Structures are given as structure tokens and as C-alpha cells.
């Protein structure tokens, strides 16, 4: 992979440029430019954090399901077992694994999101 520049650096540069022109934009475009910058920042985080998050998810799901495969395959199998009732909330280790996975995902999608706490 070319490292001069890396893909995340390109995305970061574009996001910075969009930020810089926002003051000149009409309200609707200024709003959309904010969404665009959010999108670019999510892409950047996915480029940087995604590979490790995906590897961790594959390792967790393989262990839970007792099978090998890529993330898409493992994810589809997990959904099928949840749908059939073979696995569910009381399956040992499942909620913890799903929580670890979704924490990695929210760190990419919306790192500032404050998730709900119950009591």
C-alpha cells in the first residue's frame, strides 16, 4: 500500500478543506458540509481502526460459533442462530462479545456518543 501519503491522510486533508470553506456557504450547504466532514472523519477512523476491529470481531465470533470464516460469513451465521433461537441473550459470552464489537464500531461511527446506562 502506498504510504506517501496514506489514504487516511488524504481523507483528513479533504475534511480540513471542506471545513475551511464552510463559512462561505449558504445555511443548507453549510449543514451538508458538516455532515460531509462527519462522513470523512468516519472514513478516516475506519481506515485507521477498522482492520484491528475487524480482526478482533472475527476472533470473537469464531470462538463463539466454533467455526472459521470471514466476518461476513460469521456475522450471517450468528444472525441465523439468533433468529432460530439456538443462541440468545442467555448464551454465555454472547452479550459481552457483542458489546466489545459494538464499542469498536461506535468508536468509528460516533466516538462522542454517550451510550445509555441503566441504573
Amino acid at each position, binding site marked *: 500500500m502506498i504510504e506517501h501519503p496514506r489514504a487516511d491522510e488524504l481523507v483528513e486533508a479533504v475534511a480540513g478543506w471542506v471545513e475551511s470553506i464552510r463559512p462561505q456557504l449558504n445555511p443548507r450547504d453549510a449543514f451538508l458540509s458538516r455532515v460531509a466532514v462527519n462522513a470523512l472523519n468516519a472514513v478516516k477512523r475506519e481506515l485507521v481502526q477498522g482492520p484491528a476491529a475487524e480482526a478482533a470481531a472475527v476472533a470473537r465470533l469464531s470462538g463463539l460459533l466454533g467455526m472459521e470464516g470471514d466476518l461476513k460469513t460469521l456475522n450471517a451465521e450468528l444472525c441465523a442462530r439468533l433468529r432460530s433461537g439456538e443462541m440468545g*441473550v442467555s448464551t454465555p459470552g454472547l452479550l459481552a462479545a457483542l458489546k466489545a464489537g459494538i464499542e469498536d464500531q461506535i468508536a468509528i*461511527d460516533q466516538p462522542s456518543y454517550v451510550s445509555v446506562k*441503566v441504573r
Partner: protein
Amino acid sequence: MEVDIPAALNALAPKLGGTAVEKAQRLTGGASMETWAFTVVGGGEPRPLILRRRSTPMDPEASRSVTMASEAALIQAAGHAGAPVAPLVRLCEPDDGLGEGHITGFVAGETLGRKIVSDPRFDAVRPHLARQCGQVLARIHTIPAGVAPLATADASGELDRYEAIYRTSGAERPILEMALQHMRRNLPPPMPNVVLHGDFRNGNMMFDPERGVAAVLDWELAHVGDPAEDLGWLCVNSWRFGRADRPVGGFGEYQDLLEGYMEAGGVEIPLSRVLFWQALGSLKWGIMCLMMYSSYATGATNSVERPMIGRRVSETEIDLVNLLEAGL
């Protein structure tokens, strides 16, 4: 069809107690609904009013929407029941040239959820808002079901409806799947249905810095169902605007909401039932986000907003995991 709203409003001025309409301006609104502010002059004191009209028929939630005539009837009935509303001034007729719409009084205040939870102007009233919301919901829930033709939806029906949308999307999201299956197996016991606002959340209410809840807005998703649905929807974390520590709308506590509800004549609702509907609310919002992304993926819309909304599914998933972990 493009409609010249300021001209049509101006022509309507005599029926609104004046001779002309000034300062007609479109407020930011939803995709299918337009909201306009305007002032009627020439009949004594200038009278600020609000027009709400349907601009396009297409909306993912459209099949759930009530007609503007039903909205008008609900607003009047809610007012009679003792809930704060912007009073109905006129249900638009075809000759008005405004399409399907209604005109209400203008109620001053703030609707932006983020301001309600964080602006110092609301610091004094904020601790009272959860109780007030409970009281207001208790009044809304006394509206007779016959005031307008309303659909009925219970928890099981809502799960069916959103599961169908989820399956159609083709997405495979283990947390949504787990939540669907778990909630289906743990439905709350039946309780008598009431008329629900259907979208009672921080963002759909006008708040006054002194008085608190000044008007309940956006009645288009009204239906008949479980009273805990309205209470739970108000507590969905996606409308707490960063204040996850204050479960009711980002401004208050469950206990105040439930006590306010009973003080104003509402039945006793266990917190567990509100949490069930809060979780169902997160699930619905997550699936709605998937649906909005789908409208981009299929080419139906090309705005940058739509695909980014797809990245909000994970917020509902982390909330659902936390609720399931807490023993939902």
C-alpha cells in the same frame, strides 16, 4: 406542484381576521411537511400564526401518518383534555390553495433538544420537565379514540412491522436480531389501550424557559396503543442529546415522569414497561436509520445525509446491548 404560499396566505387573510399577511417565512421542517410562520395584520393587533402543510406525499413513515384533518381534531381534543397545544385556528379547505394543511396559533419558546438539555436559560425549569411531561401525557391519554380515525398498534404488531422492514433491508445486524427475538419472547402483559401522541420526544415540544412545556407539536404519528409507548419513546437515548445520564429526554428522571403521569390521572406504569418501550424505540430508530440508508443505496435519494444516517444504527445497537445487559 409549486404553490406560492405567501400569496395564498395573503388571500386568506380576511378569514384569519385581518386584511393582509406579512413576514411569511418557511421554517426548517421535515421532508414531507412544511412549516411556515406568518403574521396577519389589519385586524387590530398583528397576529402571529403557524401554517403546517403537507408538501410531498412521499415519506418512509407516510403510511403511519394521520391526515391533517385528523391532526387538527387531535390538537383540539388534546387542548380540551388539558394538554398544552398551539390552538387550532383553521383547517385548510381546498379553496384556500394551500393543499392539505392547518393553521394554529404561534407559541413562543424553544424546540431544539440540545438547547433544552444544555442551555443555561433552561437550568431553572429543567428539573421540573420530566414531571410535566408525565402530566401532559396523562392528559393526552384521555383523548377519546373516536376523535379521528386512528390505527391501533401494540408491541407485537410494532415488532412485526419493524422486523419486516429489517428483513427487506437485507442487513444482518446481530444486536438488532437479538433484540427483536428477545422482545418478542418478553412482551409486557396486555393493558388497556389509549390514544397516543406517537412521537412524544425532546424536539417535538415547545419549551418555555419559565413555564416548561408550552405546546406539544407534530401529531402526525398519533395512534392507539400501549400508554407506556409514549413514555418509553421520550426516554430513547437518541433524543437525550448527549445527556445519557438524564433518562427522560436528556432533562429528567424516570421517577418524576412516572409520578407526574399518575398525579394527572394516569394509570400506574411499572418502570420495566417503560424500559421495554424505550428499547423498542431504540430498535425502531435503528431500523429507520437502516431504511433511510437504503433510500441512498437504491438510488432513490443522493444526499450525503442519508448514508451518514446509516452510521447511526450503531448508536441504537450499543444502547440495546446495554439495556439487554441490564436485564431488559
